[in-house]
């Protein structure tokens, strides 16, 4: 595979209708099969990066590029990106009353497919059932309306369920661990690991505040974002260091550079 899964080069991002720059030159590479953790304090721009890559209309890349398997994703509509294999697990997923999860997922799988290529009911049921088992969820869950009246934990689980069913190549997990108790965290993390086991090509960018989830999903690389820039990258030991020392040492270290 010649092309990297994800290449982000000197990416600057602003919010639509505002002059505020949130990302101020981000460089990042994620290859097939790799798990990268992106850590950093609140408001540093981590979620903005995930939203920009998946195509959220509120964010605009003012400079730089984002390549997905060599293709310029900034030229693609959000749905095209999804169909190409980009998936974001939302921090705050929307509610879609009246639409069952199973109906939603079948429509999503068939989106952009010709009628003759649509997934058979049998194959879809199997895929859905396997995904539910993977996440230790009852089959009746798929009959519920998408996120309608879900608890925070159920919403997060539902995001990973969708990931298991839609089988993306690049997964952006936006604070999937927040709001989960330790048992739910283990189930979700285990689910992500097993999806990775089933698809060796899967690359994951895991956005989190806390080192906690990294006890269950072991990253190949850890990056720290502060004020719209990646200020430090390293192996899993970096996350442990952050857990012990916080982010302040990085802020101080970077101060002279950015000044």
């Amino acid at each position, binding site marked *: 595979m010649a092309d990297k899964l994800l290449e982000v080069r000197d990416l600057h991002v602003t919010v639509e209708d505002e002059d505020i720059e949130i990302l101020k030159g981000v460089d990042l590479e994620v290859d097939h099969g790799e798990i990268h953790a992106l850590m950093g304090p609140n408001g540093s721009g981590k979620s903005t990066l995930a939203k920009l890559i*998946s*195509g*959220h*209309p*509120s964010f605009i890349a003012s400079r730089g590029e984002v390549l997905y398997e060599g293709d310029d994703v900034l030229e693609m*509509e*959000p*749905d095209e*990106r*999804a*169909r190409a294999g980009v*998936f*974001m697990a*939302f921090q705050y*997923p*929307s*509610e*879609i*009353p*009246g*639409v*069952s999860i*199973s*109906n*939603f*997922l*079948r*429509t*999503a*799988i*068939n*989106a*952009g497919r010709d009628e003759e290529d649509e997934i058979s009911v049998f194959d879809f049921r199997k895929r859905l059932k396997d995904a539910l088992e993977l996440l230790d969820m009852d089959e009746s869950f798929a009959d519920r*309306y*998408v996120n309608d009246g879900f608890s925070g934990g159920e919403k997060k689980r539902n995001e990973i369920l*969708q990931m298991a069913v*839609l089988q993306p190549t690049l997964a952006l997990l936006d604070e999937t661990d927040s709001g989960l108790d330790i048992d739910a965290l283990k189930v979700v993390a285990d689910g992500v690991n097993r999806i990775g086991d089933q698809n060796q090509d899967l690359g994951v960018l895991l956005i989190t505040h806390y080192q906690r989830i990294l006890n269950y999903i072991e990253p190949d690389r850890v990056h720290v974002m502060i004020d719209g820039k990646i200020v430090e990258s390293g192996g899993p030991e970096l996350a442990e260091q952050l857990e012990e020392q916080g982010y302040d040492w990085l802020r101080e270290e970077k101060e002279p550079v950015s000044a």
Partner: protein
Amino acid sequence: MPANETVEELNLDDYQYDFVTKDEPVYKAEKGLSEDVVRQISYHKEEPEWMLDYRLNALEIFNSKPMPDWGADLSDLNLDEIYFYLRPADRMERSWDDVDDEIKETFERLGIPEAERETLAGVGAQYESEMVYHSLKEQWEEQGVVFESIEDGLQMYPDLFKEHFSTVIPPNDNKFAALNSAVWSGGSFVYIPKGVDVDIPLQAYFRVNAEQMGQFERTLIIAEEGSKAHYIEGCTAPVYSTESFHSGVIEIVVKENAHFQYTTIQNWANNMFNLVTQRAKVHSNAKMEWLDGNLGSKATMKYPSCFLVGEGAHGSVLSVAYAGDGQHQDTGGKVIHAAPNTTSQITSKSISKGTGRSSYRGLCQVYEGAENSKSNVECDALLLSETSRTDTYPYIDIDENQATIGHEATVSKVGEEQLFYLMSRGLDEEEAMAMIVRGFIEPIAKKLPLEYAIELNRLIELEMEGSVG
């Protein structure tokens, strides 16, 4: 991805029923309304004297009442330009083979004969002013069910007819009920005997073909004690540049312990004024359900009502309205609690797009002495564009202390976040919007038999794909 673009790309407004059949009517009254036209209608129907008197009295009431100054804008409705009576065929047929070829073709294009074979207990078809076809499957005929055109009902069951006709909606109820009472033509007469459960629907289909046509069907339904049935009406017309007019009256008597459902899927062309009065009188422990889908027309004013006259009666109105560009759907429901321990539920869902406007207008009235009555009203509006509009006019009139009334209203806009969420899973904008709309009307669609849920979804140009199960 500006929000407006999303909306414009949706083809919810494409109207599939815009075709005209060339046919020669047997008789066409002159344009406009007059005593002479009323007399001609009665003459053609060979009616008893009392009915002609009833019509002439109703015409006076109509002339004496002012046009409503509330609801939809009716200023483009010019009654002098409307044909009030157009007789398409000499007689009504009981086999499709005998129906005039041109007229039959119309109904075949609408899929009616096929639906009848597969899923319906009986079918009536009205073309312009008259029923051209009416048929009931033998199984139900043997159990004493009557499903006839309203004219045949009057001729064949004169006593039963006279006992109930106009007892639920008198001519002085409102201006358009008076109009219908004067010029009614076509519609069904339905009688469900005691204890009979008609477990598949009866359907009537109303088609207006001619330009500047007025259609005034009148339906009378009597559900005897402990009986159960479901009646469905559908309506379409070609699109003309001039205005057409539809003003029906539907009266239903639901006797003790009976259960009746009346479903409308109204998809008139967008030059149609649709002003309809529908009411059921619901006796002890009986249940009446109105399911009202208003998708077409230029302006609709329609508030299906339940008059709960017997202890323990239940009435429900489930209403879904879609107002596209230039359309005004002024719809809702009325429940009148006139006996103790009666319950009611009004659920209204509207979708407005472009310059479309939807209004919920409802009445909940509890008479003194109707103790322990419970009523709940929920109305949800979904706006698909910045230029669409929705209003809520709930009227509540309670004369009894021991009553529980609830009212909830929500307005939501299809949000950028919701659309993005669906698109991030691979749906394009149009599919994403359609899915949100489909989900919004799901509580209504799931109350319909599958075929009609499909029809409802198809009518608002959404794919059915996977929306059940």
